[in-house]
């Protein structure tokens, strides 16, 4: 019961803080469980994936109602993320634990970098006018103005999404780290559309891997249950207290935490037993 409470609180805090910055708290769950709570990394990954799906579903509604989610684009890109996730599942057995820790450290560092460099709306490229899948969309910005946008460089976007799905399945994260460059950079979507659409896609991406892990019996209910519950409540809480504290300050703290966790994961990769879940 003590463990249950700790798992719940860890997920609640990670998810609430993540929600304030518009990032998923999932990236903190695996490092904290393995480094500080001695949970084996594969069990931590399974639990984290369940919470990733739960948060994606719990936060989808406002985006959908605001008309920001591009549903057609979401399914097109989901073919790539889901394939990537299935590839990741097939690879899990073959990837040695030190490599898994090292890969996680790299993703944490990239996240820290992205958190420092803020996202800005990119300038739209001229369109070719061809849109066979009818992916272009429009939404209303806060001032009520209608914004129309087009989807660029779909093949590049699909390639990056495949990678994002693979990393998501291997590390148990939502992989926003790779989805953001894909959606903002390759596809040139407005940030709001990009956030809304990738939030929805994360659910299916994680579903592709988690479904298999669940059927294999790799999802440990005593860990995944409280983690999922804490994450959902934390996400709701984070959205409420969004503006209470200066987000610049939180941003800086997050960058430092991400770098520190990356350091611990490197120790885990080296098999040093500061990291109790490395064994």
């Amino acid at each position, binding site marked *: 019961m003590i463990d249950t409470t700790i798992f719940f609180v860890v997920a609640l805090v990670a998810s609430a803080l993540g929600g304030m910055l518009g990032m998923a708290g999932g990236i903190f769950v695996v490092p904290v469980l393995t480094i500080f709570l001695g949970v084996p990394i594969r069990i931590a990954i399974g639990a984290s994936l369940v919470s990733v799906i739960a948060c994606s579903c719990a936060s989808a509604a406002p985006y*959908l109602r605001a008309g920001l989610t591009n549903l057609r684009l979401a399914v*097109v890109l989901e073919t790539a993320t889901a394939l990537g996730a299935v590839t990741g599942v097939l690879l899990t057995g073959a990837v040695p634990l030190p490599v898994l820790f090292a890969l996680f450290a790299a993703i944490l560092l990239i996240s820290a970098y992205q958190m420092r460099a803020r996202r800005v709306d990119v300038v739209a490229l001229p369109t070719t006018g061809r849109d066979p899948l009818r992916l272009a969309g429009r939404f209303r910005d806060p001032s009520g103005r209608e914004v129309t946008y087009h989807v660029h460089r779909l093949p590049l976007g699909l390639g990056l999404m495949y990678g994002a799905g693979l990393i998501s399945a291997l590390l148990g994260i939502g992989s926003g780290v790779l989805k953001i460059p894909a959606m903002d950079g390759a596809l040139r979507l407005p940030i709001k559309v990009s956030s809304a659409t990738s939030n929805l896609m994360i659910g299916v991406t994680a579903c592709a891997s988690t479904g298999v892990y669940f059927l294999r019996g790799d999802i440990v209910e005593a860990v995944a249950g409280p983690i999922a519950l804490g994450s959902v409540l934390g996400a709701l809480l984070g959205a409420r207290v969004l503006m209470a504290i200066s987000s610049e300050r939180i941003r800086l703290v997050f960058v430092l935490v991400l770098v520190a966790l990356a350091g611990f994961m490197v120790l885990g990769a080296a098999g040093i037993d500061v990291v109790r879940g490395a064994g």
Partner: protein
Amino acid sequence: MTPPMTGLEKVLARVLGVGTALASALIGLGIVAGVPRLVTAGIAAIIALPAIRVAIMLGAFVRARDGRAAAIALAVLAILALGVLVGR
């Protein structure tokens, strides 16, 4: 241009919102009452939600006679099924 599909968006928002709430309630009840099976059922429901969402979209695309979008939604479901077949 994407045709407005506000009906579909409303349905999906409701299914995902209510689905997460019910699944979370199952997990919470299972933990408090000490019934691991309830927790597992809640976890299974969460995992199934995105697949249900794609299935609802598939239905909407079929009804709208949007062959391409329906084929793509079907492909996503097929990949999920493939994962279960090859990954187990």
